[in-house]
C-alpha cells in the first residue's frame, strides 16, 4: 500500500475503514486507494473538503449497516435487489429521507444530537485518559518485558550485582538531579538525569542530532545529551549546539547530541520532563559505595521469562549478598526483599482506582444521556405512528420503515458522536490543565483514530439501541389501532408510559449517585481546607535554591547567610529564614528532612519516625508559628552540647504528657547528638493539610554537619508589596550570587493551593458530572410528565368539563412526578450507599456514608423533580375542555 504518500485525510479514511466488520475490512485499503485517486484529481481546498466530507459520511453509514448485518440485527440481503432498501443498496435514498425528516423537526434533532454529544464527549474524554494511561503498552521496544526494581533506590555495587541474574538480559540505572545552567540568558535550574550505558538502548531512544551516550563517555562523564524539549526551549532547536561546551553546576561539559522528541522518559522511573542526560560517573567514590542508594533500576526480562521467575532469582541473589552485608537484613534478621514489578504496572498503580471511579461516574452520565435520547425517540415515534401506519397501509414493507428509522437514529448518533469528539478534544485539554496530580503518560494524551473509533462506535451503538426500541414499536404496532387513531382511546400508551416512568426513575437514581459522590468529595475538600495549618500562609513567599555542593563548607555557609541578609534588607520584607525545607512542599506522599528513631528519652516510644527540621532563628517568626511553652534557642547557644531544640506539640503530648512537662527534657538522636527541649511549638501540617503533623523537632541550622546544597528560603512580606516582591526577592539573591538561578518564587498560598489541587479537581469533575446528570434527569422527568399529560389531554378535558378543579389536576400531575422521583431517590440512595466505598480513598474528614450528605443529595433531587413536575402540571391544568372535546 502506498499509504505513506497519501494525504492526511485519506489516511484517516483508511484507518476509519478498520471499523468495518471483519468480512468487509479487507476492502479498506482499496477504498482508500480510490479516494486517494479522487483526491488527487480534485483540486482546490473546498472541493477536496467537500469530497472528504461526502466520503466520510457515506463510510460511516456503510460501517453502520455492515455491522447491523454482521450482528444479525438486520437481515443481510441475499440478493442485490430483493430488498434494496434494507440491503443498503439504496442507502442514499434512506439517508436523504432521514435528513429531510430530521430537518423538519429541528428541536428534536438538535436536542438529541446535543444529548448524545454530551454523553459521548464526557465518556470519550475519560476513555482517552484511561486508554492512554492504563490500556496502551508503554512506548518502548519490548515494553511488556520491562521490569522495575522497587523499594527505593539502589547502590552502584548492587546494580552491578543485578547483572548476574539470568532472567534479565539488560539493565539500566538512572539518577535524578537538578543542576544550574549559566551562560544561556538568565541562570536556570534544570532537571538532569544521570543514566547508565544501556539506558537509551533499553528504552529504544534515538538521537535527533549528534549521538547518544557511548561507553567512552562514562570515563570522564564530561558530556551531555540534550533532551528535545530543552533543546527547543533554550537553544531554539539549533542543531549547531552539538559540539558546544556548556557550563553546568560550574563544570564544563560538551554537548554530544540531542535525543529524539518521540522518546518519552518512563514515568515510573523519573517524574516529569528531563532537560539533560548525563553519563553516570562510575569512577566517583559515591557510585562505588554500597551505602549510597542512588539509582532507580529498570531491566528487561529475557524472552519467555516471567516477573515471578525474576523475583525468585532476585530473592536468591539478595540472600547471597546479605551474607556479606548486614544492611540487607531487616531488624528481625530476615533478608529484605527487593520487589520486581512490571514497569507498566509500576506506572499506573497509583492512578488505577481513581481512573476506574471516573470511568464509572462518566458511564452513569452516559446512561442518563442515553435514557433521555430514548425518551425523545419514544415521544417522536409516538407522534409518527400514524404516519408509519399510513405508509404501511399503502404497501411499504416493515423492514423498509425499520431501516429508515434506524438510519435516522444513526444520523443523530453519528452527528452527536462527531460533536462529542470535539467536546472530548476540548475536555482532554481542560482535564490535563486542571489535573495537577500528575497522571503518568499525559504528554501523549491525544484523540487519535483509536479514540475516534471508540467515540463513533459508542455513539452508533447508543443511537442504535435507543433508536431501535421506538423504531421497533412504530413498526410493530397494530395497524388498525394506529389508523383509527390512538388518540381515541382514553388510556392509550399505558405500556409506553411505564417504560418512560422506569427510565425516569433510573435517571433520578443515577443522578443521585453522582450528586451524593460530588457532595462527599466537596465536603472532603472543605474539611481539608478548614484545617488549621499551624502556621500563617498569608504573605509568606518561599524561594527554593540550588547552591550546589561547594568545596569550602565555611564559604558556602557564609553565602547562605549573605543571601538571608540580602532578603531581610529587601524593602517590604518583615522577616526571613531558611531551612532544609518549608511546609507543604512534600504533599504528594513524600516526607522530607532527617528522619530517624529516637532513643534515650520518652519521645516516640513506639519507634515512630521523628523529623528533624534544621532551620534558622527567624523560622518561627517568618511562618508565624507560636510557641506554646518555653522559648526559642538563643543565638549564642546554638553550638552548645546538648543542642537546644523546639519540639512540636504532638511530640510533647505523646511523650511527656504536655508542653510544659517536655521542657528541659534531654534525648539522644542517633548520629545527631544529644538535644535538650527548650520550647514547644504548635503543630504544623507540614506534609499537607490532610495529613497528620507527625513528630517534629526544630533545631538550629548551625548543627548541620555541612552546608545545605538545596536550602529553602522564606520571607514574610508586607502585603502592600505583594506585586513587586517576587522580582525584588530575585534581585536580592542575585545581588549576592549573580550566577544562581532563582526560577521559583512562590507564595505559601500557591503551595497550599497546589497541595489541595487533587481534591479540588475531584470535586470539580464530580460536580460537573452531577450537575449535568441533574439537568438531564430533570429534563427527562419534565418530558415524561408533559408527554403523559398530553396523552391524557382528553381525560383531563373531560374531568375539567365535569367540574374537577385545576388545582386537583395539577396536584395529580405533580404527585405522579413526585412518585417517580421518590422511587428514584430510594434506589439512588441504595446505589450511593454501595458506591461510596469506591470513593473512600479520595475522601477525608467525612464518613463514606455521611447521612447529612446523602440526605441533602436526596432532598436536592426531590426539589428539582418537583420543579420539573410543576411546569407540566401547570400546563395540564390549563387544558381547555371545550378545545379538547371539539377536537373529536
Amino acid at each position: 500500500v502506498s499509504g505513506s504518500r497519501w494525504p492526511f485525510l485519506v489516511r484517516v479514511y483508511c484507518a476509519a475503514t478498520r471499523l468495518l466488520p471483519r468480512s468487509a475490512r479487507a476492502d479498506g485499503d482499496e477504498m482508500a486507494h480510490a479516494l486517494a485517486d479522487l483526491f488527487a484529481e480534485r483540486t482546490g481546498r473546498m472541493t477536496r473538503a467537500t469530497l472528504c466530507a461526502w466520503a466520510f459520511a457515506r463510510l460511516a453509514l456503510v460501517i453502520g449497516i455492515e455491522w447491523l448485518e454482521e450482528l444479525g440485527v438486520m437481515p443481510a440481503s441475499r440478493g442485490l435487489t430483493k430488498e434494496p432498501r434494507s440491503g443498503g443498496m439504496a442507502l442514499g435514498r434512506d439517508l436523504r429521507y432521514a435528513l429531510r425528516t430530521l430537518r423538519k423537526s429541528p428541536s428534536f434533532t438538535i436536542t438529541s444530537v446535543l444529548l448524545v454529544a454530551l454523553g459521548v464527549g464526557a465518556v470519550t474524554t475519560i476513555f482517552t485518559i484511561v486508554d492512554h494511561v492504563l490500556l496502551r503498552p508503554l512506548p518502548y521496544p519490548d515494553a511488556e518485558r520491562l521490569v522495575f526494581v522497587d523499594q527505593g533506590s539502589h547502590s552502584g555495587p548492587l546494580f552491578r550485582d543485578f547483572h548476574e541474574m539470568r532472567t534479565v538480559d539488560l539493565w539500566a540505572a538512572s539518577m535524578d538531579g537538578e543542576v544550574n545552567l549559566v551562560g544561556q540568558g538568565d541562570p536556570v535550574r534544570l532537571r538532569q538525569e544521570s543514566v547508565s550505558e544501556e539506558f537509551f538502548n533499553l528504552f529504544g531512544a534515538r538521537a535527533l542530532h549528534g549521538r547518544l551516550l557511548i561507553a567512552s563517555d562514562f570515563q570522564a562523564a564530561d558530556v551531555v545529551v540534550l533532551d528535545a524539549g530543552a533543546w527547543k526551549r533554550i537553544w531554539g532547536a539549533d542543531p549547531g549546539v552539538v559540539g558546544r561546551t556548556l557550563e553546568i553546576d560550574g563544570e564544563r561539559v560538551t554537548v554530544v547530541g540531542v535525543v529524539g522528541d518521540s522518546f518519552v522518559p518512563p514515568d515510573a522511573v523519573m517524574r516529569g520532563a528531563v532537560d539533560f542526560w548525563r553519563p553516570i560517573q562510575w569512577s566517583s567514590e559515591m557510585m562505588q559505595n554500597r551505602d549510597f542508594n542512588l539509582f532507580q533500576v529498570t531491566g528487561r526480562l529475557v524472552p519467555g521469562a516471567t516477573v515471578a521467575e525474576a523475583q525468585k532469582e532476585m530473592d536468591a541473589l539478595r540472600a547471597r549478598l546479605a551474607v556479606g552485608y548486614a544492611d540487607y537484613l531487616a531488624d528481625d534478621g530476615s533478608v529484605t526483599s527487593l520487589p520486581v514489578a512490571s514497569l507498566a504496572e509500576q506506572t499506573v498503580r497509583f492512578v488505577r482506582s481513581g481512573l476506574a471511579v471516573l470511568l464509572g461516574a462518566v458511564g452513569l452520565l452516559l446512561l442518563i444521556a442515553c435514557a433521555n435520547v430514548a425518551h425523545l425517540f419514544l415521544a417522536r415515534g409516538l407522534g409518527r405512528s400514524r404516519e408509519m401506519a399510513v405508509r404501511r397501509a399503502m404497501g411499504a414493507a416493515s423492514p423498509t420503515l425499520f431501516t429508515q428509522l434506524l438510519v435516522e437514529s444513526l444520523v443523530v448518533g453519528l452527528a452527536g458522536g462527531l460533536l462529542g469528539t470535539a467536546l472530548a478534544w476540548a475536555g482532554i485539554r481542560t482535564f490535563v490543565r486542571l489535573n495537577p496530580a500528575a497522571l503518568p503518560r499525559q504528554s501523549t494524551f491525544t484523540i487519535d483514530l483509536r479514540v475516534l473509533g471508540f467515540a463513533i462506535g459508542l455513539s452508533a451503538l447508543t443511537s442504535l439501541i435507543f433508536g431501535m426500541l421506538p423504531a421497533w414499536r412504530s413498526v410493530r404496532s397494530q395497524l388498525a389501532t394506529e389508523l383509527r387513531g390512538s388518540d381515541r382511546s382514553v388510556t392509550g400508551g399505558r405500556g409506553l408510559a411505564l417504560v418512560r416512568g422506569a427510565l425516569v426513575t433510573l435517571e433520578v437514581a443515577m443522578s443521585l449517585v453522582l450528586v451524593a459522590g460530588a457532595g462527599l468529595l466537596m465536603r472532603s475538600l472543605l474539611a481539608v481546607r478548614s484545617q488549621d495549618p499551624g502556621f500563617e500562609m498569608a504573605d509568606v513567599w518561599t524561594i527554593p535554591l540550588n547552591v550546589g555542593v561547594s568545596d569550602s563548607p565555611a564559604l558556602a555557609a557564609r553565602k547562605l547567610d549573605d543571601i538571608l541578609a540580602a532578603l531581610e534588607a529587601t524593602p517590604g520584607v518583615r522577616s526571613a529564614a531558611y531551612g532544609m525545607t518549608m511546609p507543604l512542599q512534600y504533599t504528594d506522599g513524600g516526607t522530607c528532612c532527617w528522619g530517624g528513631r529516637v532513643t534515650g528519652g520518652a519521645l516516640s516510644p513506639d519507634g515512630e519516625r521523628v523529623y528533624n527540621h534544621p532551620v534558622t532563628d527567624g523560622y518561627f517568626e517568618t511562618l508565624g508559628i507560636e510557641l506554646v511553652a518555653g522559648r526559642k534557642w538563643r543565638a549564642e547557644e546554638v553550638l552548645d552540647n546538648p543542642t537546644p531544640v523546639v519540639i512540636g506539640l504532638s511530640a510533647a503530648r505523646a511523650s511527656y504528657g504536655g508542653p510544659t512537662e517536655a521542657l528541659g527534657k534531654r534525648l539522644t538522636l542517633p548520629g545527631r547528638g544529644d538535644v535538650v527541649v527548650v520550647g514547644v511549638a504548635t503543630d504544623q501540617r507540614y506534609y499537607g493539610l490532610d495529613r497528620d503533623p507527625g513528630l517534629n523537632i526544630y533545631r538550629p541550622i548551625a548543627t548541620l554537619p555541612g552546608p545545605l546544597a538545596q536550602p529553602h528560603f522564606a520571607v514574610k512580606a508586607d502585603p502592600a508589596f505583594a506585586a513587586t516582591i517576587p522580582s525584588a526577592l530575585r534581585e536580592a539573591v542575585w545581588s549576592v550570587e549573580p550566577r544562581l538561578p532563582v526560577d521559583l518564587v512562590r507564595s505559601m498560598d500557591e503551595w497550599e493551593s497546589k497541595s489541595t489541587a487533587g481534591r479540588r479537581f475531584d470535586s470539580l469533575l464530580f460536580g460537573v458530572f452531577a450537575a449535568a446528570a441533574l439537568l438531564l434527569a430533570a429534563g427527562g422527568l419534565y418530558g415524561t410528565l408533559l408527554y403523559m399529560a398530553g396523552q391524557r389531554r382528553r381525560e383531563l378535558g373531560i374531568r375539567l368539563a365535569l367540574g374537577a378543579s385545576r388545582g386537583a389536576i395539577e396536584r395529580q400531575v405533580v404527585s405522579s412526578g413526585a412518585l417517580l422521583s421518590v422511587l428514584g431517590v430510594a434506589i439512588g440512595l441504595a446505589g450511593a450507599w454501595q458506591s461510596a466505598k469506591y470513593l473512600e480513598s479520595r475522601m477525608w474528614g467525612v464518613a463514606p456514608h455521611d447521612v447529612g450528605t446523602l440526605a441533602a443529595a436526596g432532598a436536592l433531587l426531590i426539589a428539582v423533580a418537583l420543579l420539573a413536575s410543576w411546569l407540566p402540571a401547570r400546563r395540564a391544568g390549563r387544558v381547555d375542555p371545550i378545545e379538547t372535546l371539539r377536537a373529536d
Partner: protein
Amino acid sequence: MPITDHLPLAPRDLVILAVLGEGPNHGYGLIKAVEERSPNGVLLDPANLYRVLRRMRELGWIEERGEEERRRTYGITRQGRAILNAELRRLTDLLAMARPATAGKP
C-alpha cells in the same frame, strides 16, 4: 437462485455491471466510468461502491482479476454477464412496450 429473481437491478448496479462487462477495471476506474456516462456526473463513493462489489462477488457475478498499479481489479464472470444480459433484455422489452406511448412526444 434463478436469474430473474435478481431482476430488476438497481440502476447503479446495472451501470457498474455494464462497465465491468466491457473489461476488467478497478474501483477508481469504475467511479470515473460511471461519472462520465451518467448525464449529470453521478459520483459513486468508495464505501458504497465496494459494498456493491462485495455483494456481487459473493453472488459470483464478478471476480478479482489481480492487481494493476497496486489497485485490485475486478472482472465480470459468466454468471454476471448472464444477469447483465437478462436485465438489458428486460429493459429493452420494457422500452419496446412503452415506445408507442412515448412516440411523437418531445
